Structure formats: C-alpha cells, structure tokens
C-alpha cells in the first residue's frame, strides 16, 4: 500500500469514528443511524445538531480517547474553532 493510500485509509477511519462518536453523543442528530452516516460533515455542530458546549467537550474527550490523541494537545481556542465534524477530523489527523 502506498503512503497516499495509507493516508486516505487513515482519513476514512478517522471520519467514521468521528461520525459514530457524534451519533452516540447526540443520538437525535442521526436517528436510527448509529454509524452517523447521515451526518453532514460540513454542518455547524451547534446550529445544525444542537450540540451544547458541554456535549461538545464530552464528544471531543471521547473521540480523542478513541483516536488515541491527547485532548491536552489542544488549547481552549482550538476547541472553540472546531465547528463542524470536518474540522474535528482535520484536527485529529494533524495530531495522530
């Protein structure tokens, strides 16, 4: 497998984990869809899915655990700037 293919695979894995974790944190955002396949990766998590600030912290804590990325590698500002699931995937990929 080439480096590019490995990177692409990694990206898909992270995105799947992010979707699944988000669907677990906010089940009403993806009713009947535990894998979160129906989630829009570009949508604002708060505005579109009603993610509260606390649930955002919980979601990010959980996804960091799952992806073996320490939440302590982020600053409070980094967290504030993650507005969509796509932002979360990008931030995790930089650190994993």
């Amino acid at each position, binding site marked *: 497998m080439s480096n590019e293919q490995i990177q692409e695979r990694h990206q898909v894995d992270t995105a799947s984990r992010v979707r699944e974790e988000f669907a677990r944190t906010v089940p*009403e*955002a993806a*009713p009947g869809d535990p894998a979160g396949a129906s989630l829009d990766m570009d949508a604002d998590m708060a*505005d*579109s899915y*009603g993610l*509260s*600030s*606390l*649930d955002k*912290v*919980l979601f990010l*804590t*959980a996804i960091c655990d799952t992806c073996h990325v320490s*939440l*302590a590698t*982020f*600053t*409070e500002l980094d*967290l*504030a700037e993650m507005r969509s699931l796509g932002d979360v995937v990008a931030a995790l990929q930089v650190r994993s």
Partner: protein
Amino acid sequence: MTSVLERMHSGPAPGNRITVARLDGTTTLDLVELWSAAGRVAAGLVDMGVGRGDRVGIMAANGLEWVLLDLAAVRIGAVVAGLEPGKFDDPQIAAGLRARHRLALVFADRPVDLSGHHPMALVMELAGGDATAPPAVARGPREPFAVKFTSGSTGVPKSMTASTGSVEASIAGVQELFGHGPGDDLFVFLPLSLLQQRYWVYSALAFGHDVTISTYEAAFVTMGRTRPTVVMGVPAFFEAARRQIERRGSTTDAVRGLLGDRIRYLWTGSAPAAPDMIEFFTAAGVEIFEGYGLNETCIATKNAPGASRPGSVGRALPGRRIVIGDDSVVQVHSDQPVATGYDDAPAGESERIFVADGMVRTGDLGHLDEDGYLYLQGRADDVIVLGNGRKVVVRPIEESLRSSPAIGHAVLFCPTDSRIVAVVSPADPGSDPAAIHEHVARCNATSAPDEQITRVVVAAEPFTVENDLLTSQHKPRRRQISATYHHELTTREGSHV
C-alpha cells in the same frame, strides 16, 4: 468576629495552594505567593491611577492573571466588573461599555472594541516586578464590591453593584454550612466573570484550603488529575458528567476516573437540577447539594451536609429569610442585600424585583415545608433558564415575533437547555411559512446570541380558545402548547433558522 475581607487582608497561612488547570498545562502556587504577587499587581494598579471605588473591567478566560488582577483590586478597594467573554462582542453592546459602566480601566485577553484596553499579559508583568504592595483597604458593608451583570430583556446585560456586606455574608454563610478547610480543594471552572465563582478563591485565602481554577473546556480532563474535594457546577455540567460516567460503565472507578478520588460533595445551582441526576450521584456514593439564588439575591438557600432534603433546594443561608407571598412567589430577604436596584435598567424594572429594603421578589413559585426547606414549582413569569444559568425573558421576544402579519402567536421553549425553539401559530391557516421564517431570522439578527431562536415549529392549526391553546383572554397556554407539540419540540422536527 473577623470578617472574610479582614481574614484575607491579614494574609493566608502557608501550605495551601491555587492550581490553574488548563488544557495545555497546570500551574500551582502557594496562596502566600499568590497574595504577595497580587500585592505587586495592586501597586501597578495604583500607579495606573486606580483607587478605592474605581471600576476595573476584566474580559478574559479563566486563568492566573484573572485571579491576580481581581485580588489586586480587592486589596485597594477597587470594584471589578467581570465581562464574560462572548457576552459583550456585539459592537452595539461593546460601544460605550466603558462609559456606561464607568470603567476606569479594562483588561482583556482578546482583541475587543472597548475604546482602549490593557492586555492581560500586563498583569503577569506587574506580578513579576518588585513593587511594594499598597496597604489593604477596609470597606464597609454597604460599600461597592463588584459589578454583576445579568441578562437584560433587551439583549443588553443589566448591571448591579454588589455590596461588600453581601459578598462577605454569602461566603461566611457557606462556610458555616460546609466548613471548608485544610485538605479541601474547591474546583472552579465556570467563568470568573461571575462573582460567585471568585468567592471560592476568597474562601481559600480566608479559611485556608486549596482552590483549583480550570476552564469549561478543560474541566472534564483536569478534574481527575487535580483531585478536588468539591466541584462547583451547574446541572448541565453534572448531567454531562453523568453521561460520561455511564459511558464508562457507571462503576466506582468510572466516577473516580472523571471526578477524582477525593470528592467530598458536588455543588449545583443556577438552574433546576433534574431529580434523576441528583439520584444518580447519590446512588454512586457522591453527595450533591442543590441550592437556589438569583444574581439579585446571591446564594439564598442551600442543601448541605446533615441538612438536605431530596426535591428541595435547601434552607435559607444564615442572614437570609424566605417569604412565600400570597401568590406563592418566593421572596428572599437578606440582612446584607446584594443591591437595592439595577444600575441601568429600564424604568420600573428595579422596582419589580427589589420590592422593599432587603427583599427581592424572585418570580419563582415555591413553598416551604415545616422545617424551612424550599421547594420550587416553576416560574410565575415567563423566563427560560438556559443550561448555562442565563435567563431569557421570553415575552419581549414573543411580542417581537408577533409583529409579523404572518404570525398570530409565538411561544418560546428550551427543550434541550441550550437552544430556544419557537412554536408559532400562523395568523391564519394560509400564512406563508417562508414569511414566518424570514421574520424569525430578522428578529434573530437583532437578538443577543443566547436569545436567538434556532428552530421553528409551525403549529398545524392556529392556537384558539376552542382547541384550548389560548386562554379566554386569548393568551397562549404555555403548558398545553408544550404538551401538544412535545414530539416536535423534543425530536428536532421543524425548521432550523
């Protein structure tokens, strides 16, 4: 009896610490060192022309600088106005803020349009200098201590000046109930711009215990690491903690993993706590004490060790008295009132709340049991309390929505504790849904962020007296509307704005 401020001014005993725990690291300082550094910052403030009674605005995330600047102001008798980041971003609110609240200086940790401000980094420069601390200034109980802000019905936060006596009475009252002392570590993550969160720093200095300052974002990852004995939170936080513990299997290890292994009790207030959340932590072996108070009353009642009843918000703190009016509205009398009115509210608003000397009409309905425990039963007026404790007065927003010819009535709800949803009754069955949405969007554009409507449920049929959604005076029946549209309100149906 030595007052809380006198205890603080006499300097802390060595051996207790302040820890600042943020996502990117932890700083720990002995309280003696903290008080000494705050003295050097106080000297800097005096050099900058700040004196007794002068107001200093602070707009910054929780951190050591915040604490040092606040303590410096306390030392010289200055009055701190905590400006919660995000709440004053609206250029219309920021414009003239300094003049409106007579702020001599403003410190901020971010770029803000406040007609000149000092960076928070300056605080650390002053703390690192070698200036001699100015003498500590004593204040009388009626003298101003801090400026508090509370949600305004127009989107502009209202302010009131909290008296020194009210601050001292609240801290002393809590101390009488909870006996914080050596070995305790109080964990604070809510914004220090809220005066009550700063109480726990004053308490550490006055009564000799540790205190940990964290941030909203870092709280979940730092509690286990810093091992507090008390967590100062709000219901939404403990609900989130509960979910986290449940995800980890609801075991003792899961509780300790999140909260640390030294918890003596959890403190909750600012918004009503769900009984099952209280039961969850109690069953997990962690005591959680609910209390009650408004910005206007400070901490009015509190459950406490050995004096706690499920379903109640506890008994009145020493120096407070709860009076239930003929209309079942809870009134709080304080020997040391927070204030006698708002500094800058529209005419009549102060008189509506501050009804007599030391008495505050809360607008909450409740009753007392024979032993003086207070039980709340909802709001007499139409106020939504968000999960973050902020109050949204819904009537002006609903009236503004009704100004559209397409809208007959609008009633606001907050089914998720954080987002406002409007159930809109069309003016007639043929009203254009697009016109309704456009009007809601226009209203949102002029509302504060917390007051914006995120979702609209258009009623299947207009509210009428006949379908029991309007009173005979044609006022919306809030409870019936909530019950009728329960499904749409709780399943995220309807249109997002």
